[in-house]
């Protein structure tokens, strides 16, 4: 086996050095009644070439663009990824290194993550950002637990227009804690009904997502005012990080903690993971943040360098009193996001975000003109909820046969939106593809 370099001679010499005769003698400390006597029921080893054939065939059984036209977002977005990002990210010095506990040997990762933290803080309008979390859903759950720690209150309210899977993950994390979760309904406009919150006084946090699951741009400022008036923190979530190239940042609208998904920033969808949990806060909450943080420092000669810092919050020091159990994060995905943000630049991200919005508006208007009801009146970024003449679901299935994935049917998550779908348009959708979708919908 090519990954195992030992020759028979090596093994004999090494066994001799440790005073044993056979490899199996190495396991004398394992009691006989703990040993497995059989052979693992696994396929026999494959050559590199046979493996490539097998996995290639599996990959061939997936529906992807350009064979399929994709109008599916809902927390996982199709964006153009510059070749430079994939190419630089594949450098094995980044890929095959460990968490930089020995900083002098890992300044590449450390400076890269420090830059990621900085660009993330700028994107979200916050003061500090962590080195990354698993995904947007777990980042949101961690943000809410953080709010509980900061406020000492044991109840949180979530907008029902937050991604349904994110709300499910939050419920999973909260289930054994005894902390209470409330859901805030949304209005006919597609925006969260924050007026409902005014009577509730003992919340640790109010959580909102903007753009929300329906693509609608929430009034985060109003949400922050309501939250703060009751002494709660505002946790602002997102699934489409690119939106902040164009929209007001959550930080500029009064959010205390921002948590969301950074997959849009140069990370392939990869059937949902790995993605990138982004988490940022005000500086005053820095010591309550979960997960790793990179900080700037100096070496003995006074030169700039970077280290993991504030580790006394973390599990390997604080054990059960840590701010989280997280250890591995999604560092390589964070590095990809930094490379992507650096490639776009301030000018580029604004232009690309505007292009996403313009294209989505084009399709939204074309569908409306073709007689498809646009469910919510509020402005949207690059997703919107729509109905199709004769019913969304039947038409959606028919379009699949024509190799068009016309968004996500919503009935499973929102019974009141049965026969509606969530459509996403990014810069990867051409006008021709959109025109074709409209033709097929009304045909």
């Amino acid at each position, binding site marked *: 086996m090519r*990954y195992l*370099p030992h020759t028979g001679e090596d093994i004999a010499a090494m066994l001799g*050095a440790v005073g044993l005769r056979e*490899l199996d003698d*190495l*396991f004398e400390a394992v009691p006989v009644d703990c040993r497995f006597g059989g052979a*693992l029921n696994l*396929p026999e*080893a494959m050559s590199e070439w046979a493996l490539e054939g097998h996995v*290639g065939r*599996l*990959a061939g*059984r*997936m*529906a992807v663009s350009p064979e399929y036209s994709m109008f599916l977002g809902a*927390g996982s977005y199709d964006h153009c990824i510059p070749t*430079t990002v994939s190419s*630089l990210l594949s450098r*094995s010095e980044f890929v095959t290194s*460990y*968490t930089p506990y*020995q*900083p002098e040997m*890992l300044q590449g990762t450390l*400076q890269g*993550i*420090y830059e990621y933290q900085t660009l993330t803080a700028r994107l979200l309008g916050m003061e500090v950002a962590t080195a990354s979390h*698993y995904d947007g859903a*777990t980042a949101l759950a961690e943000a809410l637990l953080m709010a509980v720690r900061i406020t000492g209150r044991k109840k949180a309210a979530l907008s029902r227009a937050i991604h349904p899977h994110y709300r499910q*993950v939050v419920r999973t994390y909260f289930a*054994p804690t005894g902390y209470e979760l409330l859901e805030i309904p949304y209005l006919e406009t597609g925006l969260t009904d924050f007026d409902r919150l005014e009577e509730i006084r003992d919340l640790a946090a109010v959580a909102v997502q903007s753009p929300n699951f329906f693509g609608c741009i929430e009034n985060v400022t109003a949400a922050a005012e309501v939250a703060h008036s009751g002494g709660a923190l505002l946790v602002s979530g997102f699934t489409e990080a690119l939106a902040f190239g*164009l929209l007001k940042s959550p930080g*500029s609208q009064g959010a205390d903690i921002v948590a969301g998904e950074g997959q849009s920033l140069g990370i*392939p*969808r990869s*059937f*949902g*993971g790995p993605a990138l949990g982004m988490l940022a806060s005000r500086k005053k909450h820095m010591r309550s943040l979960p997960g*790793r943080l990179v900080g700037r*420092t100096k070496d003995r000669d006074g030169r700039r*360098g*970077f280290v993991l*810092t504030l580790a006394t919050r*973390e599990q390997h020091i*604080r*054990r*059960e009193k*840590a701010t989280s159990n997280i*250890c*591995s994060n*999604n*560092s*390589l*995905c964070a590095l990809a996001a930094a490379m992507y943000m650096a*490639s776009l630049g*301030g*000018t580029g991200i604004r232009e690309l975000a505007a292009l996403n919005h313009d294209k989505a*508006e084009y399709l939204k208007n074309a569908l409306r003109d073709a007689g498809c009801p646009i469910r919510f009146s509020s402005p949207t970024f690059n997703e919107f909820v729509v109905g199709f003449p004769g019913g969304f679901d039947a038409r959606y299935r028919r379009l699949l046969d024509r190799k068009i*994935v016309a968004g*996500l049917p919503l009935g499973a998550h929102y019974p009141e939106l049965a026969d509606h779908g969530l459509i996403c348009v990014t810069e990867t959708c051409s006008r021709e593809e959109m025109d074709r979708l409209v033709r097929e919908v009304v045909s």
Partner: protein
Amino acid sequence: MSESLGTTGLILNEPLLWERGKKGRSGFSMPAADVPRNPLPAELTGDGPDFPDLSEIEVVRHYTRLSTWNFGVDTGLYPLGSCTMKYNPKINEKLANLRGFTAAHPLLPSVLSQGALQLMFNLERFLAAITALDAVTLQPAAGAQGELTGMLIVHAYHRHRGKQRTKILIPDTAHGTNPASAALCGYAPVPVPSGPDGIIAPETVAGLMDDATAGIMITNPNTLGLFEANIREIARIVHDRGGLVYGDGANMNAVLSIVRPGEIGVDILHLNLHKTFSTPHGGGGPGAGPVAVRKDLARFLPVPRVVERNGAYELREDFPGSVGRVLAFHGHFGVLLRAYAYILSMGPDGLKQASRLAVLNANYIRERLKDVLHPAFDRPCMHECVFSDQNQQQTGITTLEMAKRLMDGGYHPPTIYFPLVVHGAIMIEPTETETKEDLDGFIEAFRSVVREAGDNPGALREAPVRCKVKRLDETAAARNPCLAG
């Protein structure tokens, strides 16, 4: 260290991203605008983030230079104990980048994602065979999230039986993630002291286990590199009092096809695909932490689950006992795919040989360093060996200083100061993918550091001198945190 692997070459400086660039540059090929402009109302838009504008070559040079300041498994021996820094095969990277997978949307209808679902289904079966457990979830994003998922299952199990418990037993050698994961489920960790032989005695567990204790979290082999030989008896004691045995599979690389956790009393086990199954660590992640359980606990696994019927695969959510979803989608699929490719490349015999050679390499290092470093336990080890700083205490040289000096020799240092029960711990896990010659080089480098501790301690206190930077001031970083530029 004049003849060492470590040397100095030309290392280029590189400023921070925002210290480069000029407004108006771009490193991105903007797709053509083929639709009319349609601006949002001004009250919704902001100024956009203050990012530097860089050209493509600037981005390329920036990250290429940064990469040269990093040390990876592809650079050299990386013997971090407990981290299993084995070689990460190149073919796995290539397969993970197949467009059929990278471009696949997680919410595609099952009928359009059969390839990914079949791969996940197969991988679940492989991991079940390796662990001798019955059902597997691939959803947890990392080992710690696997632990949390396991604790959620323990919590759901006791709730289902009608009486919740309040405590959990955790050996004093455990990773910090164990108590932190248990605490998230409201369980108070009860430390279980390891015996003088480095393993847990059944009597200790019997004295602590009671009706208010939900179970035990046990890492086997443990973090001292020793097999918990009393595991069956410990499991019997925990089970007799209504508890569950959670196995932390972080060290599974030592015992593939040699021990199957499901056969020695473990009810729930997480595996770190980024350790045992060769997926890269990426400078700290992403990992993947699948969880395997025995049959009667399968009802509690996270949703969605992959189900097969007549050769067709689908994702199903209708499992009412489930602890729920732990990640937005179905797990770190890109990582799962690499582990799948690894298992198929190795086959059953290759996996077994990998564990044997991992243990051989660790014992070889232990044997060849034990006259200069003090072994924490005077007996053979499994996949990693642990030394204390006892022999160095009279020189005044610390474990940290030895670790820093190893860098100058061209090696990543071992894990240090863990496990906590060993004074000045040095924990070395070479893994099976290292050649005897590289092990010999590492051993010589370490012996040379130990000699220097006696004749030239200043060299250790100065170290490292051959890295991009000299010793960094971690205390100052924490005192006045600067987390963004």
